[in-house]
């Protein structure tokens, strides 16, 4: 059966309340925009790191099964020319003989990637494909959309096998429609006539796609259990649900109050949360909007129960309040951090970074075949038994314990303070690195941490990713 074999999500830990956004602008937001909070990626997160996190969670669940393709979807890939899927594949330690592609240009890039993955499997070149969607969109500070957007990622493994949901039908529409857009050189999304965009774009096109899908599957709406549909804002979503004639199918929480509208990641993230509660035999419609629409009809199988028992992590997490709107602005580099006294550009050699790609991205140390000692970074002569070239690559664990740490207020990083940690990794190897999403008050010698891929700096205009340590269970 071709279908969904696994899924996971990642939502950054920080939440910015809409009340705080209103406070910062000195004009309380009006209902229905005044309530809830949005997820905010930390200063060292982008769509690549968030997607990597979702992919690693997904792969950890699938017990060593390696996909033979990785598709990445986002409207906010950090680079126009440097494939994000390849960076993620490297960090996930996938073999180099895989298919990779980035999908972009539309908020339905996530489902487009999913459809392309399904086609690749049906067509034969791939057995299973990991599809990751992530977005970290920006609206102009002060605009309502800024409060409604949320940052997040989701990852799905689709392929041939014991699917927890099979794909029964798909339907797509391509329509050039001026809803929201962003020009290459601009940071912020743009829109024009909001009522026109909500009713004549979002509502009309999605209902057409849903009708088209059900007609194709020869189903009537009452045979469907749930519709999964991204919501840019609550009024548009409610109006869509009403106009569908089957509003009860739209009861799936669009996560507007807890996460926000996660752009290209949204249909996948919402599908993931829907599957958390789905039951065998249910039919789910997944809708996705942008430059037209995609629609997929999924049928949940008996495997869903087994999958739920395998996964441990709370999909969304509870999050932690971001201290202020100003912190959001500094996280997005829209204003300079009050701590950042001067800008530094760390040394880099891109030749060196390429040479060390397996060590630094896939996170390999070396293990001495004579005395079993494990080291990171790699070396040639064993400091323990003094043998020359006794080493074999050793995949490091992403879990470990804090040996020691400090909260450094002097380091001129993009945000201060910088928390540094020494971590003993399970199974050997010791890493000295920064901590991510860290509340320094909670740190203790010996506590459990895990490694997460983050942006370090952009020396030579090239984003340098590496691993930071993070307290375990921060988001659950």
């Amino acid at each position: 059966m071709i279908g969904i074999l696994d899924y996971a999500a990642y939502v950054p830990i920080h939440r910015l309340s809409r009340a705080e956004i209103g406070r910062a602008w000195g004009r309380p937001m009006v209902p229905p925009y005044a309530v809830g909070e949005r997820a905010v990626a930390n200063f060292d997160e982008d769509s690549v790191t968030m997607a990597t996190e979702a992919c690693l969670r997904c792969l950890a669940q699938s017990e060593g099964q390696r996909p033979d393709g990785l598709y990445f979807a986002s409207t906010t890939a950090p680079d126009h020319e440097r494939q994000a899927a390849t960076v993620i594949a490297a960090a996930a330690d996938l073999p180099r003989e895989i298919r990779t592609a980035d999908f972009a240009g539309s908020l339905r890039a996530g489902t487009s990637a999913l459809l392309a993955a399904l086609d690749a499997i049906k067509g034969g070149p791939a057995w299973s494909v990991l599809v990751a969607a992530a977005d970290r969109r920006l609206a102009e500070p002060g605009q309502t959309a800024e409060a409604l957007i949320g940052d997040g990622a989701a990852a799905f493994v689709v392929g041939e096998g014991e699917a927890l949901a099979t794909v029964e039908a798909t339907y797509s529409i391509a329509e050039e429609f001026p809803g929201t857009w962003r020009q290459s050189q601009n940071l912020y999304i743009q829109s024009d006539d909001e009522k026109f965009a909500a009713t004549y774009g979002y509502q009309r096109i999605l209902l057409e796609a849903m009708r088209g899908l059900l007609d194709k599957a020869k189903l009537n709406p009452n045979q469907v259990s749930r519709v999964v549909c991204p919501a840019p804002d609550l009024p548009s979503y409610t109006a869509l649900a009403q106009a569908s004639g089957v509003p009860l199918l739209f009861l799936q929480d669009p996560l507007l109050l807890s996460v926000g509208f996660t752009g290209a990641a949204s249909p996948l993230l919402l599908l993931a949360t829907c599957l958390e509660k789905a039951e065998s035999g249910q039919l789910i419609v997944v809708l996705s909007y942008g430059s037209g629409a995609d629609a997929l009809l999924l049928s949940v199988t008996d495997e869903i129960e087994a999958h739920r028992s395998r996964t441990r992590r709370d999909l969304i997490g509870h999050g932690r309040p971001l201290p202020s709107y100003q912190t959001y602005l500094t996280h997005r580099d829209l204003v300079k951090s009050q701590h950042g006294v001067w800008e530094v550009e760390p040394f880099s050699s891109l030749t060196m970074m390429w040479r060390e790609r397996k060590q630094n991205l896939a996170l390999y140390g070396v293990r001495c075949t004579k005395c079993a000692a494990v080291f990171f970074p790699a070396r040639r002569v064993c400091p323990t038994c003094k043998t020359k070239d006794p080493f074999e690559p050793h995949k490091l664990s992403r879990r470990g314990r804090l040996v020691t740490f400090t909260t450094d207020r002097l380091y001129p990083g993009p945000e201060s303070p910088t928390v540094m940690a020494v971590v003993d990794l399970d199974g050997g190897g010791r890493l000295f690195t920064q901590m991510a999403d860290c509340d320094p008050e909670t740190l203790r010698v010996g506590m459990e941490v895990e490694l997460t891929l983050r942006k370090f700096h952009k020396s030579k205009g090239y984003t340098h990713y590496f691993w930071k340590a993070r307290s375990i269970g921060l988001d659950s």
Partner: protein
Amino acid sequence: MSIRDRVAIIGVGATQFGEHFEHGYSDLIVEAAYEAFRDANVSPPQIQAAWLGTCFPDSGGYQGNAGASLADALSLYHAPISRVANYCATGADAFRNACFAVAAGAYDLVLVVGAEKMRDVTARESLVGQLAETGHPVHGKGVTAPGMFALFATRYFDRFGIGRETLAKVALKNHRHGSLNPKAHFQKEITLERYLKAPMVADPLGLYDCCPQTDGAAAAVICRADLAPTFSKEPILVKGLGLANPVGDELAFDPDSDFISFRATKEAAAQAYEQAGVNDPFKEIDVAELHDCFTITELVTYEDLGFCQQGEGRTFIEEGVSSLEGALPINTSGGLKSCGHPIGASGLRMIGEITNQLRGRAGKRQVKDAKRGLVHNLGGLGAVASVIVLATS
């Protein structure tokens, strides 16, 4: 063949330590070297070779990259000059190399100068900037000098149940000693309240746990021990020169690091003690200059040098053993805390302090009957340590 009693110090010199906005790198070298020439009663043409210790030429207008910088400063073009860099043990290692050249018989009379011009750039741009902008692009990225030693403080606190009040005692002692040193960068005492109220730098280290960014140079003139009496009535003998780098640059990545002691110091001390014939350092050393780049370093170093047992550093400082009036006065100069830490200069300044202590010329901070002294430096995060034992006879 041991280095013991083969080389003698016949003259030392040092600049005022501080922010020398009116003086350049070369000016500092001239002041320190000529003071050492006067002290040794030698003239520059007599110098047969020289060593220059400068660790970070980038902060001082790129001077100090090679021996040529010393030749230019002193117009000392007739002598071969080597530049030495070995992190914060740079000055001590320049001295060590010079001693071995003399002991080998290659030269009879040589000059060693350590100099570092750190305040031609802003304090944050100098060492902090270099650590942020240099080194591996991602490994250990985020580290600063206080951040490195704070890793030790965190672990040491956790292991031995001490807190900042113990580190404060090191800071207060060294500032008190510094108040008696007219060449120190800071010459005033501080109170516990001031220590506690100062901003934190890298937890648990605060402002007064850290040495400042300072300009300075220091020099020594050394010669064959058998020739020393022809220059000086009170030559000081080199008894032991230990240098160790047992973990290299990877201490924080080394699975064996315990973050409560520095193996480099232990190994360098073992070498120097063996050469000098020191069996019980606490009893046999009368005065010592330790590398108190941060207060935690001094505390850990009491233990690593064998002045007390591991975990007893707290008692050692709290009972006043290391104060000027104590059984083993440590950092009578005020240490790096009060004098500041111009990297290449520090080791030679400390050698000068011990030389003057052993010659009875330390003024208000003179330790009575000091016959044998020790100089300790630690570079990188325990990447290299130098231990030097000096004595009157």
